[in-house]
């Protein structure tokens, strides 16, 4: 095709190749390999001279060439009227191509060819595959007479030469025939082509062209506004017509010479013709003659000869002034660049010419303007401009008007030549001319032509568009457009090319209908597909928005969508007309995938309808077409629905870590906040699945389209060893509740049903299609009812599945079959990846851009290659072997409800059964109750802000950690009897529950497992919770307590046993009364029954003090217990308060050292007291009420500082006694008092006992004062008190009231007696206190425990 508009086309001999003798298409194609349908150059030199020929004897111009242009098809119906005007359009030679058969009847075939192609002047046959044995007989070398049948040897060794011989033979035949043919024209009056056929159409078109020319184009006007207006000289009409006749004859002969390769003759004839025709103003033929001259000149250059044009005549016709000629011919000499270029480019052709070879500048200058000195391209330019001018002029003459075809083709040939020169650049011109003559694409990297610029060429091309090409024959249109497209392509104007191609398709679209069902349809489809693919690349439709983030960002920033969609529409129309269904299908896919956002909803519906129809047709015709689904991001989210209790199963390692943690902390030497337990378990316990159990996934599917998307099938795709079975009949829409029955799935929800009702019509169609087309999908194994995603929305679905192996289950996506589309793999979309669009244009990118747009779309969709666009995610779950199941089958409490009194203990039992087929070989217990939470909260709150003192924290910790609300009673039995719980067997566990205040509900947590191996990571723990609802009623509670010192003379009323105890102590020699103190506790009975309460205090292992009392409901009773004082020897009171949680010790700086010591002392004292106290209570048993028993919470006891002072021994003790002065005997006490006489001498003996570890030193001070005054008198003033407190004149002291103890101090464990004499002068009651001020480091003040009460009389 491309050769049609070669510049030298008028010199080509059109030759048609046809298969004959039942040549099959494969054979024909094989023969064409040997004899390609292309240009074949035959040198006249190689032809045998034939003197018989009148005109075309090759001998006369041995340099000439004949170009056989072999075609496979030569439609000439449209151009037959031009055969007389431009004879090269005629198909001169018809060659029958035959395969050799023994019975080949060449005569018959020759006749047949002549009958079928009466227009051709030569009918020849080439018989291929002739056996070598036969060939000598058939191709007799001696026979030089003209043959019309040629035999080609089958053996390959002399393929080429044999073929050349054959071609030469044919050419020879052609020359003979042409001679006759040309002779036949001598007497014919030649008419212009217009008058031969119906002139109407052409006139019209040319008129329009005329209009355009006059109005629009400036360039045209400029180039033609020559100084020579069309002259219409009144010449004698007769001689004019004679001249016209002669001129036309000459021109035609020149054309024949051109065909026959005799260029010198043809140039001469053309020039003669031109001169003659100019005279008679026959512009059409004149133009054609000029064109012939330029063609001949180019060919002369090609064969290496020089042209000689008679410049004066030519310039008159060309109307080029001498000035211009000289400027043209001199410019190339003036500019050095040109010269050099000239010489190199025209090296071979012009160099032999004497003018150029001796081209001294002076010579050229002197010779002045010579047309022969003009470089070839410039010459051709002048000629072509002139040709167009004359053609243009011819439109004035109605009869001899230029046909459009001639006009356009002339322009196109010129353009082709210009482009050839343009692309050739500075290259050596022999190759360049060859490329022009053979119409081969000739590419030179350095595009820098000095003759034609791109804009020159574009101006020429513009001229084509000034004609109404639409009115021309379709084949011509195709040729012209495709040639233009290739020209633009050559000029690197891709968008122009695309534009023209689109125009071409628009042009041929209406004519395509006719071509249905013809042979070669496939080729046609293929070439149109090729054009479309090219257009897609140019118009950016090839952006892979579904897989490339850059493309997507470019697209989102704004592509020329309107343009693209228009083009795609055109494509759709075209392919539909062509019935090219595979391509059509891909186009629909492309539109839906990449342009959904720009398509209105009815268009989307239409596209879907189209796809469905085509698939239906293809299935009926077994074409096996299929489409991928258009949206690769179908699966938006996948979530595993854990429909069991989330804590039901946990990995054993996790469990162990939790329990072991505390021990580790103990072992650690100090608290290391960075030593966090490592996250040893790699998976979330929510994601543990048990093999063969049914689980569900919540899958979110999106539908960006305006139509409903119907899901026919859905399979979960996994990676790795673990596979799943998708339970297809359990796929249903998700509407909030997890445990939806499958039966309910049909009524999806109201709105959806409505949507369905609206689109019932279309849905029916699709349903029918899907069943009709894909019967395999409608088997029992598929989704039970069609699942529909409504338009432009996303929908959640529940998909049931069952893991089949144990291990890590990795769900990577789904195989989903949607509507009529093929089954496809979809990954799970996680996040969109965005890339910033490039702001600059990638100049080279276009060429590197991906081709095969449509295949790419389908491929991307099929492979789900969306990695670049989004990040996908996988759902990782863990499948573990089947686990045992322990369940509660009985509990001895009614309904799990129980009422308890505070502190009450209650026994009950539970029965559990292993329902599974797996053995349980691990069981552990733990408890939970509702008091834990508030305590924990309190504890956590305190730890942050240090509000609670350490002792209180300890108290809470004790309640949390030490207090046991439950106890297993039959632990030993269980351990012995039930080493394992076998499948389907039971276990009974006895419990004791301890009622605690504030408890509302509690739980027994049983953890059990089937330990398979030592590898703990493979074992899993399951739980059984046994909830118990408890209500606690108050029973006995401690309302208050106090500790009093015990003195020997303390009067204790109505407590006989206390008294008796005291008496016993007093009487005993080993103990002193001051070793004890009295513990008072008030206990209140808040319950509505009498409760018998018993408290006991154990002094040591053997002896204890017990109190039993019955407390009436609502009454408070005071209990008195003698308690042994605590000595610092027994308990270290300075130890820090421990933390049961093993928390790090934090020093509290808000309290002073002394306060802290005090706190510790109280803590340890209370601790020792609680250790020794024990209690229990029980109800007085009646028939109405059951027996209840329990204990009082003694931890309610709080010690104050005063109490603690009473309870503890001081380390230094002061004892005082009064001695009779005379006998040095101790005066006996009367009750608590000493009865002394006035005016008698007594001695007060103070004994200091040092129990500390160090020597003490100090001052002993005596503080005697009268007692009665204190109690009786009203205190008026401080002075008065002082006066009354004074012992002046009441007691006489023999010595000093303050005296140092001793010089050396008292050694540890030592004791010292200090005596002081005194006389009481006045009657009355006195109290005598003793104070020891130690002078040691602590400056302790020790006060005597038992002050002396003296009653003097």
């Amino acid at each position: 095709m491309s050769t049609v508009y070669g510049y030298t086309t008028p010199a080509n001999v059109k030759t048609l190749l046809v298969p004959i003798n039942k040549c099959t298409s494969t054979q024909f194609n094989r023969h064409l390999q040997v004899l390609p349908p292309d240009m074949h150059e035959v040198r006249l030199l190689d032809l045998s001279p034939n003197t018989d020929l009148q005109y075309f004897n090759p001998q006369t111009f041995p340099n000439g060439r004949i170009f056989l242009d072999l075609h496979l098809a030569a439609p000439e119906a449209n151009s037959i009227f031009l055969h007389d005007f431009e004879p090269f359009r005629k198909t001169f030679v018809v060659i029958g191509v035959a395969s050799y058969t023994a019975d080949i009847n060449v005569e018959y075939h020759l006749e047949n060819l002549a009958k079928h192609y009466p227009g051709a002047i030569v009918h020849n046959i080439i018989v291929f595959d002739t056996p070598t044995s036969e060939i000598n007989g058939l191709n007799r070398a001696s026979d030089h007479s003209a043959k019309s049948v040629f035999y080609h040897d089958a053996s390959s060794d002399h393929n080429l030469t044999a073929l050349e011989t054959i071609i030469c033979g044919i050419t020879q035949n052609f020359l003979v025939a042409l001679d006759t043919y040309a002779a036949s024209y001598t007497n014919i009056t030649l008419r212009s082509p217009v008058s031969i056929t119906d002139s109407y159409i052409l006139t019209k078109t040319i008129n329009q062209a005329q209009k355009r020319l006059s109005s629009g184009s400036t360039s045209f006007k400029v180039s033609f506004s020559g100084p020579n207006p069309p002259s219409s000289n009144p010449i004698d009409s007769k001689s004019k017509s004679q001249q016209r006749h002669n001129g036309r004859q000459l021109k035609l002969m020149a054309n024949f010479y051109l065909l026959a390769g005799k260029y010198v003759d043809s140039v001469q004839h053309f020039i003669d013709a031109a001169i003659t025709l100019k005279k008679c103003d026959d512009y059409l033929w004149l133009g054609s003659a000029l064109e012939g001259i330029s063609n001949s000149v180019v060919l002369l250059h090609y064969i290496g000869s020089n042209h000689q044009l008679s410049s004066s005549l030519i310039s008159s016709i060309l109307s080029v002034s001498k000035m211009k000629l000289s400027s043209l011919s001199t410019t190339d000499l003036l500019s050095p660049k040109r010269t050099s270029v000239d010489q190199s480019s025209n090296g071979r052709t012009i160099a032999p010419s004497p003018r150029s070879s001796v081209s001294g500048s002076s010579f050229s200058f002197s010779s002045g303007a010579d047309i022969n000195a003009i470089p070839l391209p410039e010459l051709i330019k002048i000629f072509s401009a002139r040709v167009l001018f004359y053609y243009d002029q011819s439109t004035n003459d109605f009869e001899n008007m230029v046909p459009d075809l001639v006009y356009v083709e002339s322009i196109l040939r010129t353009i082709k030549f210009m482009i050839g020169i343009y692309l050739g650049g500075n290259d050596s011109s022999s190759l360049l001319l060859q490329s022009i003559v053979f119409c081969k694409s000739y590419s030179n990297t350095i595009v820098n032509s000095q003759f034609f610029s791109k804009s020159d060429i574009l101006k020429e091309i513009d001229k084509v568009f000034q004609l109404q090409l639409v009115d021309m024959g379709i084949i011509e249109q195709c040729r012209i457009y495709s040639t233009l497209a290739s020209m633009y392509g050559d000029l690197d104007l891709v968008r122009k090319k695309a534009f023209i191609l689109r125009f071409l398709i628009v042009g041929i679209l209406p004519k395509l209908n006719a071509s249905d069902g013809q042979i070669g349809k496939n080729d046609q489809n293929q070439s149109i597909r090729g054009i479309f693919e090219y257009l897609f690349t140019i118009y950016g439709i090839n952006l892979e928005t579904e897989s490339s983030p850059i493309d997507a960002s470019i697209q989102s920033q704004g592509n020329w969508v309107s343009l693209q969609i228009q083009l795609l529409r055109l494509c759709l129309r075209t392919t539909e007309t062509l019935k090219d269904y595979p391509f059509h299908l891909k186009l629909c896919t492309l539109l839906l995938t990449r342009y959904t956002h720009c398509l209105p909803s009815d268009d989307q519906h239409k596209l879907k309808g189209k796809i469905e129809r085509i698939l239906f047709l293809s299935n009926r015709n077994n074409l096996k077409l299929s489409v991928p689904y258009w949206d690769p991001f179908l699966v938006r989210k996948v979530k595993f629905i854990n429909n069991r209790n989330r804590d039901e199963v946990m990995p054993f390692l996790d469990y162990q870590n939790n329990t072991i943690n505390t021990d580790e902390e103990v072992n650690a030497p100090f608290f290391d906040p960075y030593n966090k337990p490592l996250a040893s378990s790699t998976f979330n316990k929510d994601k543990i699945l048990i093999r063969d159990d049914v689980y569900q996934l919540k899958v979110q599917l999106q539908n960006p389209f305006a139509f409903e998307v119907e899901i026919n099938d859905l399979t979960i795709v996994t990676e790795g060893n673990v596979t799943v079975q998708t339970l297809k009949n359990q796929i249903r829409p998700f509407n909030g509740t997890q445990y939806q029955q499958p039966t309910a799935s049909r009524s999806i929800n109201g709105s959806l049903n409505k949507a369905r009702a609206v689109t019932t019509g279309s849905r029916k169609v699709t349903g029918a299609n899907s069943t009709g087309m894909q019967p395999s999908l409608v088997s029992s194994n598929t989704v039970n009812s069609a699942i529909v995603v409504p338009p432009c929305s996303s929908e959640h679905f529940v998909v049931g599945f069952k893991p089949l192996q144990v291990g890590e289950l990795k769900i990577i996506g789904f195989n989903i079959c949607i509507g009529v589309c093929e089954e496809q793999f979809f990954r799970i979309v996680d996040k969109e990846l965005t890339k910033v669009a490039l702001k600059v244009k990638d100049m080279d990118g276009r060429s590197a851009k991906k081709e095969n747009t449509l295949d790419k779309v389908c491929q991307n969709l099929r492979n789900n290659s969306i990695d670049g666009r989004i990040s996908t995610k996988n759902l990782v779950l863990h499948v573990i072997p089947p686990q045992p199941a322990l369940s509660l089958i009985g509990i001895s409490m009614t309904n799990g409800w129980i009422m308890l009194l505070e502190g009450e203990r209650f026994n009950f039992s539970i029965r559990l059964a292993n329902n599974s087929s797996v053995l349980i070989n691990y069981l552990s217990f733990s408890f939970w109750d509702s008091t834990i939470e508030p305590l924990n909260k309190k504890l956590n709150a305190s730890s942050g802000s240090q509000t609670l003192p350490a002792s209180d924290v300890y108290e809470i910790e004790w309640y949390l950690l030490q207090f046991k609300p439950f106890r297993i009673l039959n632990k030993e039995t269980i351990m012995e009897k039930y080493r394992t719980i076998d499948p389907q067997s039971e276990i009974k566990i006895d419990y004791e529950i301890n009622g605690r205040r504030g408890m509302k509900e509690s739980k027994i947590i049983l953890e059990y497992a089937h330990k398979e191996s030592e590898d703990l990571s493979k074992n899993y723990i399951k739980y059984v919770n046994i909830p118990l609802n408890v209500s606690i009623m108050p029973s006995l509670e401690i309302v208050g307590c106090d500790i009093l010192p015990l003195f020997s003379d303390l009067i204790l009323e109505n407590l006989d046993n206390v008294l008796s105890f005291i008496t016993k102590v007093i009487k005993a020699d080993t103990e002193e009364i001051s070793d004890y103190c009295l513990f008072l506790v008030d206990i209140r009975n808040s319950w509505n029954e009498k409760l018998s309460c018993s408290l006991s205090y154990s002094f040591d292992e053997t002896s204890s003090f017990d109190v039993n009392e019955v407390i009436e409901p609502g009454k408070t009773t005071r209990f008195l217990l003698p308690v042994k004082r605590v000595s610092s020897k027994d308990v270290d009171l300075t130890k820090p308060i421990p933390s049961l949680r093993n928390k790090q010790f934090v020093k509290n700086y808000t309290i002073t050292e002394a306060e802290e010591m005090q706190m510790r002392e109280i803590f340890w004292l209370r601790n020792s007291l609680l250790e020794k106290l024990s209690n229990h209570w029980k109800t007085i048993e009646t028939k109405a009420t059951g027996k209840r028993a329990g204990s009082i919470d003694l931890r309610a006891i709080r010690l104050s500082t005063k109490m603690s002072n009473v309870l503890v021994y001081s380390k230094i003790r002061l004892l005082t006694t009064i001695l009779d002065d005379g006998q040095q005997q101790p005066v006996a006490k009367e009750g608590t008092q000493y009865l002394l006489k006035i005016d008698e001498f007594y001695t007060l003996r103070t004994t200091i006992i040092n129990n500390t570890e160090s020597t003490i030193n100090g001052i002993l001070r005596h503080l005697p004062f009268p007692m009665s005054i204190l109690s009786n008198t009203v205190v008026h003033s401080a002075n008065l008190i002082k006066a009354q407190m004074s012992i002046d004149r009441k007691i006489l002291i023999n010595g000093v009231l303050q005296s140092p103890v001793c010089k050396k101090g008292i050694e540890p464990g030592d004791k010292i007696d200090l005596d002081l004499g005194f006389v009481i002068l006045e009657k009355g009651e006195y109290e005598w206190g003793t104070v020891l001020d130690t002078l040691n480091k602590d400056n302790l003040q020790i006060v005597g425990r038992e002050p002396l009460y003296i009653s003097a009389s």
Partner: protein
Amino acid sequence: MSSYYFSIIGTRDNPLYEVEFSSFKSSSSSSSTPPGISQFTDSVKEILPFVSNSSLDLIEDAQWSTSQFNLGRIDSFYGLLVYAFITQGNIKFILCFESSTTNNGNVTQKYDENSIKQFFIEINDLYVKCLLNPFYAVNDAITSPDFDLKVKLLAKKYL
């Protein structure tokens, strides 16, 4: 009264702005149609983006051969004339219009070319202002109604 198709094309052959309008001058001749509404036939309308797109080739070719931003008449296709202007940032302004038949000769054409040049220069001003907007990135579509209005005002003024 001739109709115009004006488009701004980004660096990646992406349209930033498109508008169709017709000349406000001499609109009195045909009172049936309101002024300013383009009167392209459907077939021409369809082809306009393609013509603009194909002229990009010529613009990119021509930009190297001149130092002017205004490239003048760059292309024509049948009756459609294409004028172009290229900014410093390689953004192209393309104006397509059907050459009106009522014009008589070169004088009007000259006048047209001048006014088109002025139109382009002022559009360039507008575009640069638009580009100064920190929220506008090169190659984004220009959606500002203000811009649209101003373009139309300029069209009324010059074309």
